[in-house]
Structures are given as structure tokens and as C-alpha cells.
């Protein structure tokens, strides 16, 4: 999944990889192109996670709080500047995790049903501010229920913001006509994807197998 997300990254893009799973993608970025990763806590052009804590610098962490390092051409700045970048539409792409995505592109990724507390963080600004929003998530929840739904039952992060959904089963684009299934994971049939998806999928005429 992270590998497929990495394929979305093109030379010259400014990209934010949201909290949790999507940060893994930073490990799979091709080395021969300039992808500028943005961390909402105040970095542009950072590198992968440092696993050895004795090598970690707490003042060089990504938005998930993990130690990282700066690449040549990096910049550090404060949170307000960081969200000026996000809200002002300066990011080409945001990759976010999700609990649910609706067929109209509504995103729910911050709070569980019935809770008063929750972690919205910068997800709402990334969802509304980035030029393109890709959701990367498991296709179904831990009980096997679809995460791609007709209407989100969980509290929304933002309305009509998702452009693309990448899961362990499929690559789906949200277009005017609806949810278009563009790619399936190796060994997965379009019928299996549909069976695990609540709204009806439109099967793309040039449906292909996911490449990494």
C-alpha cells in the first residue's frame, strides 16, 4: 500500500504524509527525483525515521513525533508558517489515513463514535487545503466492515475533500460520476473489491493490476 502511494509522488511535488501509516511512504520515495516532504510541525525536505533513539534529536521530529533528519535544501519553521503553507493551498498532495470515506469524498479520520475527546491535529487543514488528497487505509475495518461507505457514520474531518483512495485491495478515484475503480491489487477481482465496498463502484474501462 505504501509502495503504491509512493508511485503518486512526482518530481517537484510538495507533499504531506499524515499521522501514522502514511509516514511509512517516506521510506519508498525514489532517490532520483525531488519530492519535498512537508511535516506540519515545521519542516520541509526531511528524511526517513531514525530507529535508534540514541541517534535521535528531539528537535528533528516529524509530525508523528518520530525522530528524523533533514536533507540538503531543508527548511525549518514554526507551526503558524506550516499551516500557512497547508491552508494557503501550497501543498500539491496530502496523504491521509482514514476511518471512513464516503462516496462523495467526505473524510472521517479523527474521532470514534460516541467519544468526547479526539485527535483532529492538522488533518482537517490538510484535507481542505492540499491541492489533492489521497487517503491510504485498509479497505475494511477490524470487523471486516467496509470503510468506503455511502455516508460516514463517524464524525467528519472534512466534506468532499478526498480525490483518491488507496487500500490493500484497490486504487479508486473519486470523479464527478462517482467512485471509479482504476486498479486492483494482485490476485484481487473487481467483484471482491465491490463486496467490501458499500457504495456501487464504476469499473474503469482501463482497469489494471496495481504496480509498485
Amino acid at each position, binding site marked *: 500500500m505504501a509502495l503504491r502511494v509512493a508511485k503518486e509522488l512526482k518530481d517537484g511535488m510538495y507533499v504531506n504524509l499524515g499521522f501514522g501509516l502514511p509516514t511509512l511512504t517516506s521510506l519508498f520515495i525514489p532517490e532520483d527525483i525531488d519530492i519535498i516532504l512537508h511535516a506540519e510541525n515545521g519542516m520541509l525536505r526531511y528524511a526517513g525515521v531514525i530507529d535508534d533513539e540514541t541517534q535521535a534529536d*528531539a*528537535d528533528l521530529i516529524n509530525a*508523528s513525533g518520530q525522530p528524523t533528519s533533514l536533507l540538503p535544501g531543508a527548511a525549518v519553521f514554526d*507551526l503558524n508558517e506550516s499551516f500557512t503553507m497547508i491552508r494557503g493551498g501550497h501543498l500539491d498532495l496530502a496523504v491521509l489515513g482514514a476511518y471512513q470515506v464516503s462516496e462523495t469524498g467526505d473524510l472521517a479520520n479523527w474521532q470514534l463514535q460516541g467519544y468526547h*475527546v*479526539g485527535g483532529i491535529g492538522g*488533518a482537517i487543514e490538510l484535507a481542505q487545503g492540499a491541492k489533492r488528497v489521497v487517503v491510504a487505509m485498509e479497505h475494511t475495518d477490524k470487523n471486516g466492515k467496509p470503510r468506503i461507505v455511502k455516508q460516514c457514520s463517524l464524525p467528519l474531518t472534512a466534506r468532499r475533500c478526498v480525490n483518491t483512495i488507496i487500500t490493500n485491495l484497490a486504487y479508486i478515484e473519486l470523479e464527478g460520476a462517482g467512485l471509479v475503480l482504476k486498479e486492483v491489487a494482485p490476485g484481487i477481482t473487481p467483484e471482491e473489491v465491490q463486496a467490501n465496498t458499500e457504495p456501487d463502484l464504476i469499473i474503469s474501462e482501463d482497469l489494471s493490476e496495481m504496480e509498485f
Partner: protein
Amino acid sequence: MNKVVANLAEAIRDIEDGARIMVGGFAASGGANNLVQALIEKGTKDLTIICTGSPEWMPFVENDRAKKVISGFTSHSLRPEITEVIETKVRAGLLEVETVPHGILSERIRASKAGIPAFYTPIGVGTVFGEGKETKLFDGEECVLERAIEADFALIRGHFGDRLGNLTCRFVARNRNTEMAGAATVTIAEVEEVVEVGDIDPERVDIQGIYVQRVVKAPKIVKWLDGHEAV
């Protein structure tokens, strides 16, 4: 002019019960951990804590010193068991929480510092974050009115500081420290080192002394997001 005070206790001497407090930091970086610890030791309670997430509000919530938490993460992002504890406190009426998107909180804090009483933003429209707020269309896009957020004290962390209150911050430790400095009535900065006036490059002053009322030297304490302290 000498803003350097002798110790942490003196730095926080006039923070009283019921105060509204901004606390700098984001995850393991830039937290005013020494000032927070001193405030816990002083026993000050019924506080409203305005901050990024759990690393900043945990000491106040664990020790029942917070009346309200205003934060981007009112749950704990890595430890569900702590989230359950907080949720239980909220349901029992022992704690009030207000979850505010990181960037909106940042802009509301900056607005307070910059003399802007309110601003419009499309962020939050159609979600619980926009509920109950005044709305207005700009170029056809619905926006909500957000108010500046003020505090009595801001507790921030710098790297170097001088007696005029000029501060530098290391790398991403800038985070909320720069916006909070000057957004509260009194801004108190803990710094790793107090340096001579003139030692800080005028082009490398990250927080100008005009925003800072007190400076106190205190060691760097690193707490990782899961709660463990760096060795």
C-alpha cells in the same frame, strides 16, 4: 532591563488558580517541561491549558490541575488507555475538552498576539468544528468566524536567551513557542542557556524580546510521545 529570573519558582510566582495557560511544544520538541513541572509542584489548579497535545496537557490532567484542555489532540494519539481515562473524566464532568484543529488554534493564538480579534476560514465548515459559528460567503465559499484566543500566561521553551528576552529555538522546537510568545499577558521562557546581549545574531532571533517578560535557565527534558523520557 533584565528579564532573567533566578529560578523556576520565581518565574511562575504569580500564576494563580483558574489561570488560562498556553504551553508551547509539539510532541518531544520545544515543550516548557520545567515550567510545567514547577507549576504542578506549586499546586496551582483549575487551569485552562491551551496546547498542541498530550505531552503538554498530561501533567495537568494526571494531577487533576486542569479544568479545561483546548488542544488539537484531546485524546492520546498512541496510548488508548490514556484516552479512556480522559474520556471518563469528561463524562463525569471533571474535565472540559475543546478539540481545535492545529492550524486554527495556531491562527487564533497568533491573532491574539497580532491584535486581530477574529478572522474567517473555510476550515471546519460542515463538521463539528464549524458548528454554532457565524458563517459568511467569500467568493462563493462558506467560511466560519474564528475568534482570537487569549491567555494569562504563556510557558515557552527557547534554546538561547538573553536578558532582553531575545530567544532562539532549535529546529522544529519553534512550533508553538513563536506564536504563543506575546499572545498571553505574561510570557515566560525557559532556556537551555542564558547568553550575553549581543551573542545572538540579529538575523537568528526567533522570538523577539518584546514578546517575552521573563527568562529562566532550565535543563532540556525530552519526553517522547509515548511518555518515556530520553536517557
